[in-house]
């Protein structure tokens, strides 16, 4: 038997030393199973973008089957986007490498890999810009921090721009307000042009566009699922409800993230929406085509983002509703709040949202005509419309994760907390440097919530989990509330790995537990079928 390697040999096998010069060229990315997302299929790219000539490839292969004129495509695509998006040019030029962002990325914090420092991740793109799109770069080349566009650069982009969750925590600390998420978006868009994209993003984009939701649940199955939930709700409350689907002329179109109707624990949040709307007697409708708030287009290209956003509004117009109510979704809210107006808006054919229950006019949504459900529910509670029994949630010791996009892209901090505090008696905040605008990402946004990437996500989500652990240890917190469907899917394994004993919930699951519906039977369990406090025996 061979001798095991000595410690010294093992030490020497790790070479992470950063060379002082040319580090980006000298340390090529190493693709190994579990550290990358699987590529999109050629037919997906051809179907959605009309991209012809794509071939099968794998990150672990030497040859990525790039088109012959790939450099020309990237250059031309870059040039076009620099002209089109003034922000991109500013972001490329303005960074002074002050380092304020460097240690703010959860992927850097969890891995220690310098290329995950936002400044260096952006430099992967900026170095190409500097070399070929600036006069000084053309003359000085490497001396000005520029570098040649090689196939290795493409591989590096794929590695690191697909380790960015577009959460924008780093941007918060940038004195110039450079939006690293937009740099990632543009880099991914350029990769898209040469056929480099992930399956986990393209499949949901196509399904959402064609069928209406990420996993391609057809309309009749959507109806079945809602019916199943109606049965579950009847069993729980004794009340039979009848959620409207594709109802023309309804006042409000409700758009949830699809994760809430096929994946636990989001399903309980979806039941919560339905129970609340029924109790209010709300004139609303679900739609089988606009059955997805999630916009994975944000993770691939402006074109895809625009088309997915447009279909929600097209459906609102077709159904003749007055305004749109949006569910506990994440990225949808960045698109609606920050891009919608220049992509597809303003939505002049809709009315400024006004709660039919309280009369409150949501002026903040006067352009997009779309209200976040925690804003809507907070207003209901504020106006004392709901009969709530928070003691039904007394077995839950709750903390709240500010989901990145509702938090940083629309400043939604108070409403979810106001709702939670009115439906739960035990609420505890995580440390202040990890919540509100400084919230740590779940580690899985921007299309990284795929199976093959799980190990990477564990390290990316570690700073978030570490803050949850603090309130778990100190206050015995056993429930992590959030308002994003990706959170609800990825937090259970993240918690199970780092903080066993903490479960995950949407805010409207907590609302529905506490909601005393008119004429309901005495409830024995919560929405999950767990005994209510005091009814365990």
């Amino acid at each position, binding site marked *: 038997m061979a001798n095991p*390697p000595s*410690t*010294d040999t*093992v*030490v020497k*096998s*790790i070479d*992470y*030393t*950063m060379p002082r010069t040319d580090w980006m060229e000298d340390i090529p990315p190493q693709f*190994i199973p579990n*550290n990358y997302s699987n590529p999109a299929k050629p037919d997906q790219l051809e179907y959605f973008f009309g991209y012809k000539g794509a071939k099968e490839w794998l990150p672990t292969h030497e040859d990525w089957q790039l088109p012959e004129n790939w450099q020309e495509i990237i250059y031309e695509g870059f040039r076009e986007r620099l002209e089109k998006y003034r922000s991109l040019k500013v972001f490329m030029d303005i960074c002074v490498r002050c380092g304020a962002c*460097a*240690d703010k990325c959860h992927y*850097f*914090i*969890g*891995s*220690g*890999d*310098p290329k995950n*420092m936002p400044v260096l991740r952006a430099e992967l793109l900026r170095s190409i810009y500097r070399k070929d799109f600036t006069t000084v770069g053309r003359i000085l080349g490497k001396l000005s921090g520029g570098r040649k566009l090689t196939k290795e650069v493409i591989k590096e982009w794929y590695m690191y721009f697909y380790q960015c969750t577009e959460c924008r925590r780093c941007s918060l600390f940038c004195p110039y307000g450079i939006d690293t998420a937009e740099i990632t978006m543009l880099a991914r868009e350029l990769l898209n042009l040469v056929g480099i994209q992930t399956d986990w993003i393209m499949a949901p984009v196509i399904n959402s566009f064609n069928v209406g939701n990420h*996993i391609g649940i057809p309309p009749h199955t959507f109806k*079945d*699922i809602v019916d*199943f939930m109606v049965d579950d709700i009847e069993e729980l409350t004794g009340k039979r409800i009848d959620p409207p689907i594709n109802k023309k002329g309804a006042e409000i179109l409700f758009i949830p993230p699809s994760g809430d*109707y*096929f*994946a*636990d624990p989001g*399903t309980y949040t979806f039941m919560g929406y339905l129970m609340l709307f029924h109790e209010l007697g709300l004139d609303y409708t679900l739609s089988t085509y606009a059955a997805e708030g999630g916009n994975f287009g944000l993770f691939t290209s402006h074109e895809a983002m625009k088309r997915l956003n447009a279909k929600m509004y097209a459906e609102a117009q077709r159904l003749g509703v007055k305004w749109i109510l949006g569910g506990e979704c994440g990225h949808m809210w960045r698109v609606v709040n920050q891009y919608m107006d220049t992509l597809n808006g303003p939505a002049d054919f809709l009315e400024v949202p006004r709660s039919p229950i309280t009369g409150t006019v949501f002026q903040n949504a006067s352009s997009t005509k779309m209200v976040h459900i925690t804003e809507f529910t907070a207003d209901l509670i504020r106006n004392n419309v709901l009969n709530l029994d928070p003691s039904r949630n007394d077995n839950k010791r709750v903390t709240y994760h500010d989901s990145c996009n509702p938090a940083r892209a629309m400043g939604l901090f108070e409403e979810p907390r106001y709702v939670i505090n009115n439906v739960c008696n035990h609420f505890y905040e995580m*440390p202040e*440097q*990890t919540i509100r605008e400084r919230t740590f990402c779940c580690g899985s946004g921007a299309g990284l919530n795929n*199976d093959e990437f*799980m*190990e*990477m996500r*564990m*390290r990316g989500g*570690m*700073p978030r989990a*570490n*803050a949850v652990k*603090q309130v778990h240890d100190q206050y015995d917190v056993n429930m992590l509330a959030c308002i994003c469907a990706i959170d609800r*899917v*990825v937090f*259970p*394994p993240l918690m*199970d*790995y*780092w903080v*066993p004993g903490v479960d995950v919930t949407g805010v409207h699951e907590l609302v529905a537990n506490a909601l005393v519906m008119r004429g309901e039977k005495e409830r024995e369990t919560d929405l*999950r079928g767990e005994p209510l406090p005091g009814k365990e025996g």
Partner: protein
Amino acid sequence: MNTSQGQLREYMLQHRDKIVNEWLDAALQTYPEDGAKFFKEQKDQFANPVGATFSRELNNIFGELLRETSSQQLPDSVDAIVRIRAVQEFSPSQALQVFTVLKDVLRAQLDKPVQEHGWQAEYRALEDKVDQLSMLAVDIYVKCKEKMWELRVRQAQERVSYLLRKYAGVDVRDSGRGDPFSEDTAQD
């Protein structure tokens, strides 16, 4: 009876901070330079959970090595570190190098006093403890990796859990945190 028994321990207690610091440096050398610098220098445990965990737990483990019999603190501390290393981009041997490298650190720090004072017997016992520590880390590492695979299976099920429940009659909630088709959970 060896009259020098306990003297090495006393020496190590006196030089604890220095030795633990050397160990921390050696452990962090397995990260890229800029990453290691951040892990070492940022003291806020929420801004830098990896570095904070290493600083805290290496010190705890060192304390456990100095005890006659280790307490539950030892596996807890080893777990905290291995749990991190198991999801970072290391091969198994690289991941566990945090522990194996302790022998090098101890040699560098203790060789001279051990030779001078004739503490060899106590030193050999200490090295045996470091070996046991490494073995404990192997056990925990494997458990962490097993957990990852369990979570993968679990997530694949939960992603469509409602559909599985309603269409296939498979309720993944009944299976606890494991594979519903495994032997353990089949008995439920």
